[in-house]
């Protein structure tokens, strides 16, 4: 089995309106279900992390800018690592990602094994 990095991209520039506790709970549920199903299939390598929306980018010649990329709306909001036999299988797993239901997208990349 190979490992795959799933990167969740989403719109980080539009400020989110305050959510009610019930909305927050409703938002958390599909993530728990999705992660739960990956774990149940024993395909989870690392749950990964959520990332802050802002950061810095170091350009050529050491120029540091506020990033990630101010000119585009989407940034990586988090990542997870799964294992699968093929990128197609990893893609199938990623199709259940709840970010897809809120306007985000998932990029799937095979991790090159070094051993």
């Amino acid at each position, binding site marked *: 089995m190979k490992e795959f990095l799933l990167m969740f991209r989403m719109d980080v520039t539009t400020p*989110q309106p305050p959510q009610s506790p019930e909305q927050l*709970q409703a938002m958390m549920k599909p993530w728990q279900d999705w992660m739960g199903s990956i774990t149940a299939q024993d395909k989870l390598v690392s749950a990964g992390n959520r990332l802050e929306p802002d950061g810095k980018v170091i350009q050529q010649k050491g120029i540091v800018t506020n990033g990630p990329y101010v000119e585009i709306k989407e940034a990586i909001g988090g990542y997870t690592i799964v294992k699968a036999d093929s990128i197609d299988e990893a893609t199938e797993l990623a199709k259940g990602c709840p970010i897809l239901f809120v306007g985000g997208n998932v990029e799937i990349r095979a991790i090159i094994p070094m051993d």
Partner: protein
Amino acid sequence: MMQQQELIPHLFRTEYRKLIAVLGKFFGIEQIAIVEDIVGGTFLLASETWGLKGLPENPTALLYRVAKHKALDSIRRDILYTQKIAPEIKRLESGVTELEIDLSPQNIKDNQLQMMFAICNSYISTEAQIGLSPNILCGFGIDEIAEALLANKEATYKSLSRAKEKLKLKKVKIELPSPSEISSRLETVLTTLYLLFSEGYYSISKNTTLRKDLCLEAIRLNLMLTEMS
């Protein structure tokens, strides 16, 4: 063990108001909008993180930690604060990364009481106090307040914003009144709590859960007051 599907609403009910009171005291009432953003953002990030990584051992402790981080970030980011919190910034630059945001039970309680006096203040109308109290002291959302008070959401939102603006303009301090003022100030607080209870008790709103919550909150705030003496 609490059902997972109720965790966030439960935490929101118990912890939102505490964080608002402590951070409100820390930043000052004039920054209440920022404080609401920080606390709202804390719950958002917690829900997102727990969806991905599962629930932590002690969700409350984690919420407090996230809220402190967010407060710290907010201070670092916004240069407007440098005047008010300049000494803190200096300490941060000298390598101290923890802010003195005291989330101990005693300080939470103290700050909540102080916040009660800040909001139940004759600078703002009684009607506005009745809207603002459940919002800031109890963590009710605009929708809920509008429903409980049978008011239009838009109007409720505007009235709350105006009230917050007024507190800011009058530079209301989040503190207990001096002993000489306390009885007159207490009168205002008690009137508002009484009316808050009545809004729940006599309301013609059909939402009985909400009405009950409003009554319970009024009772809770009263109990806090009696414990003070």
